[in-house]
């Protein structure tokens, strides 16, 4: 796969929406979820490893996003990526010594993704919206009940500005700076940009925003296409108030 020639170099490795140069989707209508037995093992392990490592919402995703490009796009695909992220977490949380797995494999230290991973950046709390603690439900969920009303309503023209904090975010780059129309407000959730870094929940309403393909891709856009993206409220400004 090799993302090298495909991905805009300024983009973060996982932020793929709209990037150019990719070929046909490797489509198989009959495809089963697992191809190899080792993929099943990785899947079964991750659910036991995460409760002892990345327990915060967004933390595991951010670990995947911090992988080196060659590890993110490794030939063994999605479950290979999960295994790499698992190795990183086990080392970062002190369950494994760096290179310990290499020792088991009988090779010199240095083959693991932990040697190539990007460290988490220090996110400045001032770049995040203020926290407004809400009751935490008894069952595990990212949904929260906010006692304030959403800032936006259906029909508003909005624009998403970049994530200044520089860490994990759920704002895809392809919609940044492009005006769209609010179509619906989803239930509020904790803000992954904050929780992934251990900076509190800072719950936000989630806004479904519709973008015209022409606004995103210009003249080359296909006709009659709308792309809907779910954005945390703090990502957005009214178009009229932006700039």
């Amino acid at each position, binding site marked *: 796969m090799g993302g090298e020639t495909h991905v805009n170099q300024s983009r973060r490795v996982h932020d793929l929406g709209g990037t150019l140069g990719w070929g046909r*989707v490797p489509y198989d209508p009959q495809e089963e979820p697992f191809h190899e037995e080792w993929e099943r093992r990785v899947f079964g392990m991750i659910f036991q*490893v995460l409760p002892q490592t990345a327990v915060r919402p967004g933390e595991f995703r951010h670990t*995947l996003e911090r992988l080196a490009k060659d590890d993110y796009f490794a030939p063994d695909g999605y479950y290979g990526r999960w*295994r790499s992220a698992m190795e990183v977490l*086990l080392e970062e949380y002190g369950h494994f010594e760096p290179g310990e797995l290499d020792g088991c494999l*009988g*090779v010199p230290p240095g083959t693991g993704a932990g040697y190539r991973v990007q460290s988490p950046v220090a996110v400045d709390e001032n770049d995040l919206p203020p926290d407004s603690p809400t009751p935490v439900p008894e069952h595990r969920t990212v949904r929260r009940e906010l006692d304030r009303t959403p800032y936006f309503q259906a029909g508003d023209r909005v624009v998403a500005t970049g994530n200044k904090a520089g860490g994990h975010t759920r704002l895809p780059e392809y919609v940044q700076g492009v005006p769209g129309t609010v179509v619906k407000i*989803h239930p509020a959730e904790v803000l992954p940009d904050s929780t992934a870094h251990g900076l509190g929940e800072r719950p936000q309403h989630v806004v479904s925003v519709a973008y015209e393909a022409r606004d*995103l891709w210009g003249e080359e856009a296909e006709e009659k296409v709308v792309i809907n993206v*779910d954005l945390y409220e703090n990502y957005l400004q009214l178009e009229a108030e932006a700039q």
Partner: protein
Amino acid sequence: MTETHDHSHETNADSSEIRTAALEDLLVEKGIVDRSRIDSLVERFEHDLGPMIGARLVARAWRESDFQSRLISDADEVLRQENIRGAEIEHVEVKVNEPGIHNVVVCTLCSCYPWALLGLPPAWYKSPEYRARVVREPRKVLEEMGLSLEPDTEIRVWDSSSETRFLVLPEQPAGSEGLGLEDLAALVTRDSMIGVAKALNP
């Protein structure tokens, strides 16, 4: 090393199978992972969950217009009533295909997918090709995948960038009107609920 997987004669630390086995051995040795729980987790996600759960909802929505309205207006409430719960369905929205409107779901930032309704996603859904292209040229991508839409059909792409998960309600195929629930559900493929295919013809 443990006695169960002695790979010390191997030198290829990048081999997926060998590396995964060594990781499992080390995790078991440290008491972080229980092998039998790996088996039970895989068993549950591979066999107890799957597209048949979503397919039954779609089939019922085809037969009962009241159920369809409730599914569209508040899927979370329907799932609660039907006792459907599990991973990756914190908030579900059902998007209806109809003449002139076609919905298709993606996650450009990772691979979000409604596990408890469709089971685990196929590799193509998680591929960079799908994630990159279906927001930019959905008509072409769908065509390459075998789904040709009329030029005047509006395509609505849903990028799963929050914890909302989307299920496409495909159009009911002609000639299936008299079928029972189970026969209807058999026409509803996983891919028709992602939006890259139509439901099967009876």
